[in-house]
């Protein structure tokens, strides 16, 4: 039941990003299209070759239709499941099933957002969503979401395991260290533990540097069956395993605030891939807040439950540390246009291609991507990607 027949069955042959940071004057569809076009060219294809589409958007209910019309494609496989920012990692499973079933030959996974500079930005969307998707058992207490929900998670983790604010700060400082090596990253100024601790409070224990960026950006990648990927111009990156898990919607409905669904999604991805934590060379862990990579490291078996804080101390996940995490700078320092999933996948691909320049992890062969979605670590999708050698 591990789905191991999907191991290595599909490959990512093209990736593209656009407008990471600030992209004033560009619409969400334009950012998506710029990234999509770059990914399709990178894959050695044309838009006419795309016959599968995976996409999601936080504002628009029938978003795949907007994208189909704008890109001028008529796909035979359309996947618009939206489980939050993890969606584009989760899409890998559905895309693999469709490709293997022969429903389609080239799937484009794509996203774009202008939440930083657009006229309908973060604030407007929050107001609209409060009426479209009300949380009647939480709204009266006005949690400042998403920070407050993750702050409740962090506070409980601190209470239960002794995790400290300086340990949370290590995550932000490591991300900034990587971002400083990445010309595409939005925030590249030096950042110290003290800077993180002294920043303005948002929802305690989080200050501003514990919270991800609010940027614009588009991200896209192209998937084909593995045998077809051999003709692609770039080194192909293979999907070795993938798993998705969703347990709740609201923070009130989260069974144990210190345990996320990546316990399940990770197990599923490991089982499909036949790999374990010790086989992973580089990790891209969705860092909506500094607590997220700590939870993911625990739930994905890189350390025991409760030991994520000590694990990240001393620059352990930054450049030169013992485990490279979020090598692009992550959502904390590189790019975070509301849904980060595509960008985590793209950075994993770039690492496995060996195209990351100053931030390249030498000899990276297997990468783990963990997507996080919803206001309360509600959905998690884990993917394990590898070079041709790992097949």
């Amino acid at each position, binding site marked *: 039941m591990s789905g191991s027949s999907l191991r290595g069955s599909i490959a990512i042959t093209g990736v593209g990003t656009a407008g990471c940071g600030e992209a004033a004057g560009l619409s969400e569809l334009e950012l998506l299209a710029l990234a999509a076009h770059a990914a399709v060219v990178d894959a050695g294809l044309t838009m006419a070759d795309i016959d599968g589409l995976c996409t999601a958007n936080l504002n628009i209910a029938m978003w795949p239709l907007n994208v189909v019309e704008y890109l001028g494609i008529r796909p035979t496989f359309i996947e618009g499941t939206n489980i939050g920012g993890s969606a584009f990692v989760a899409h890998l499973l559905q895309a693999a099933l469709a490709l293997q079933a022969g429903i389609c030959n080239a799937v484009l996974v794509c996203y774009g957002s202008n939440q930083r500079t657009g006229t309908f930005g973060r604030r407007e969307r929050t107001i609209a969503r409060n009426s479209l998707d009300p949380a009647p058992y939480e709204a*009266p*207490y006005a*949690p400042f979401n998403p920070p407050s929900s993750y*702050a*409740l998670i962090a*506070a*409980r983790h601190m209470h239960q395991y002794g995790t400290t604010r300086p340990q949370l700060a290590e995550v932000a400082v490591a991300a900034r260290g990587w971002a400083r090596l990445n010309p595409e990253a939005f925030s590249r100024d030096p950042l110290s533990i003290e800077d993180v601790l002294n920043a303005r409070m948002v*929802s305690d224990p989080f200050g501003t540097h514990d919270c991800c960026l609010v940027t614009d950006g588009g991200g896209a990648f192209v998937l084909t069956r593995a045998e077809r990927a051999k003709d692609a111009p770039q080194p192909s990156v293979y999907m070795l395993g993938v798993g998705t898990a969703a347990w709740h919607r609201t923070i*009130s409905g989260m069974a144990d605030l210190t345990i996320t669904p990546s316990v399940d999604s990770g197990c599923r991805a490991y089982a499909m891939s036949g790999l374990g934590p010790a086989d992973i060379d580089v990790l891209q862990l969705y860092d909506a807040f500094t607590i997220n990579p700590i939870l993911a490291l625990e739930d994905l078996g890189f350390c025991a439950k409760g030991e994520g804080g000590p694990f990240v101390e001393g620059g352990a996940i930054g450049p030169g540390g013992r485990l490279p995490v979020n090598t692009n700078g992550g959502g904390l320092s590189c790019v975070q246009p509301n849904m980060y999933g595509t960008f985590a996948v793209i950075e994993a691909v770039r690492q496995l291609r060996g195209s990351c320049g100053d931030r390249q992890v030498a000899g990276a062969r297997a990468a783990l991507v963990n997507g996080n979605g919803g206001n309360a670590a509600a959905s998690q999708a884990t993917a394990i990607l590898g070079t041709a050698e790992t097949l």
Partner: protein
Amino acid sequence: MNGPDEEFRLALESGELRLQHCDGCARAVFPPRIFCPHCGGTALAWRPAQGGGEVYSSTTVHMVPKGQAPYNVSLVALDEGVRLMGRVEGRQVVIGQRVTLRVEKAALIFSPEGETP
């Protein structure tokens, strides 16, 4: 016929927190449901909450409009075995501390046990 959400809301507006209890597995259910999420049973009976609980997690929201004070948002584990969001109003809010419920303007407000609001 009102659904469980509406029944809950009407009780809360009259100043009372009521919880569903499942005949099948004897567990309390929150938020209100059509069937029990634990055992699938459909025999759910309303009972008033006893009002005691423990702070499970807590945060203070500092992102507030100018001139407004930061405020507390907590998750409280009620003695009935359900966890819900509310506001704890106390000199110091600590995870694990015992709290007592009052319903104020259809909202759940808690005070540390022994501290009179």
